[in-house]
């Protein structure tokens, strides 16, 4: 496709913690505007890869590039600027329990801009409306259901219109109908905001529904990257089995 370029590149990413090799050979790239899904079985290193992409774990200089930067090696002020350009939706939502949904969603704006509070409230309302959660603005996270929590977390992640959205297991703990609705929501938001989405999941239905690119991890190694169709008919027996079992075949 014309004009597309790699927005994320991972080259020979290695992760060693306490003398244990967690990731040993991770290579993939994600093009602008894509929904890239990192899949693999439990313990395959999906979340570790995500944490490297977010700069929460240190990685070697050239191993990770997100919008041309490796967040783990940036200076504190550069890191702050980097984090303004990304949105992250965590597995359990990770909303701050002491704040209302509205305060949670508005937090990045409050921290990084000098916008007046009433304007921030307007932006928060808009974002909550986009995730169909406008009535929850004054509720606390403890008052929300699992699906609502995920949508509130999504609203917080997109509040500053980031070019890249990272999602860690967005579907965990959701029933299939709510999960489908959440996947649809992410696809729509990606279209509306022109984002690139990187998602970690082991939910095959989400992969089939959303993914433009699939990155398959096995025991800390990326053994495949390509389209969903290529993944389903991959030469690699484990990938085929993963999809077959996920689709209930």
């Amino acid at each position, binding site marked *: 496709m014309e004009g597309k370029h790699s927005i994320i590149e991972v080259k*020979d990413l290695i992760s060693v913690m306490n003398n244990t090799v967690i990731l*040993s050979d991770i290579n993939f790239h994600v093009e602008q505007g894509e929904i890239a899904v990192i899949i693999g079985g439990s313990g395959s290193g999906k979340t570790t890869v995500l944490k490297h992409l977010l700069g929460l774990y240190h990685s070697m200089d050239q191993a990770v590039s997100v919008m041309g930067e490796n967040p783990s090696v940036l200076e504190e002020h550069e890191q702050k600027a980097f984090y303004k350009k990304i949105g992250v939706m*965590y597995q359990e939502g990770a909303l*701050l329990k002491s*704040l209302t949904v509205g*305060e949670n969603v508005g937090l990045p704006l409050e921290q990084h801009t000098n916008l007046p509070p009433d304007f921030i409230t307007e932006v928060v309302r808009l974002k909550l409306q986009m995730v169909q959660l406008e009535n929850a603005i004054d509720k606390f996270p403890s008052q929300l259901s699992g699906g609502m929590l995920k949508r509130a977390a999504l609203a917080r992640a997109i509040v500053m219109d980031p070019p890249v959205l990272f999602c860690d297991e967005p579907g965990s703990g959701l029933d299939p109908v709510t999960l489908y609705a959440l996947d649809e929501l992410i696809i729509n938001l990606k279209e509306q905001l022109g984002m690139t989405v990187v998602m970690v999941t082991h939910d095959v239905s989400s992969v089939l529904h959303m993914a433009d690119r699939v990155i398959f991890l096995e025991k800390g190694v990326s053994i495949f990257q390509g389209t969903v169709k290529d993944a389903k008919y991959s030469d690699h027996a484990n990938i085929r089995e993963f999809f077959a079992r996920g689709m209930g075949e």
Partner: protein
Amino acid sequence: MSDSPGQQSRYFLRGEVLEIDGDFTFRTIHGFIQYCRKTLPQFSGEHLTIDIEGIRSMDSGGVTAINFIRKDLEKRGIGTTLSGGSSRTRKKLDVFSEAEAGIEEESEELVRKAGYFEKLGKRSAEIFNKYVTSFFKLMSEITYWTFAGLFTKRAYRKGEVSNQAVLMGVNAALIVGMMSFIIGLVLALQSAAQLRSFGANIYIVDLTVIAMMSEMGPLITAIMVAGRSGSSIAAEIATMKVTSETDALKTMGVIPVRFIVVPKMYGGLLTMPFLTILADVLGIMGGMLIAGAYLDIAPVVFLNRMGDVLYLRDIIFGVVKSLVFIYLIVISGSYFGFSASKVDSGVGRVTTSAVVFSIALVIFADSIMGLFFY
């Protein structure tokens, strides 16, 4: 030669050079090890060069296989050298050899059965690196942001400092006041009998006032606050850590220490002196009650004598102590909170540790300050 679907590797021993080509991964190394076990026992040279120039891809299995063969040869007194290799291959070798070296080091030490002092030293070094260094690192970060926060844009929510002041100070006033009153009462009661037998009744004022103002008041308050707020700080931060809220803050560009800890520090620093003065006053009132009831010292006489024995220095000393104590309580609560991990579900564990450690730290600091301000 070894093949597996999609991957191939080749290896040949030519004279004093062992050449390895192709994909050298978990899928292909089995054949390599078999080959080496068959051919290398016949190798009669003093030095073997392992040529890795032709390696196309390599994983941790490949690195381990090379190191495995090298070790085997070295045991037989045969030196080895690696030759060639792309930067990618060399990088893999460096990383995995480093990880392997750590494992080896540990296992060798186990075989050697380290002596008592060696184990003690090793454990002390580990504790120092793991706990002491990280404690002081966090302490410096909190201290920095506590001061820098006064001159930079507010990083926490509006009203958070007063909220913390209420939680840590106002809500603790009743229990701190009650405890201090009882302790003042008991202190005076225990001394009354002794003083009366020497006819030194009036000295009960000196004893109660000085003890409460410079020692018991700040200490009781700090212990009560450590039990209430130290544990709650640790539990709150640990829960945030376990539920990825601290990660979420980081990836929103918010420094967790600034957002979570600094308002608690301000809240504590603002209220702790008042709590301590409240404890002092109520403790003295307890002593005054006993002085009146058991030693016939009227409140007016008690207060007059108090004016003679109490110096401003004692009041300031008590307040300074209270500020140091709350600083230590917030730091130790935060330290244990941030050290919680999902792996050991340690919210309960860190809460207990935070209370024990902060009380110990307070008593230790109290004794040090006692020496300085004696």
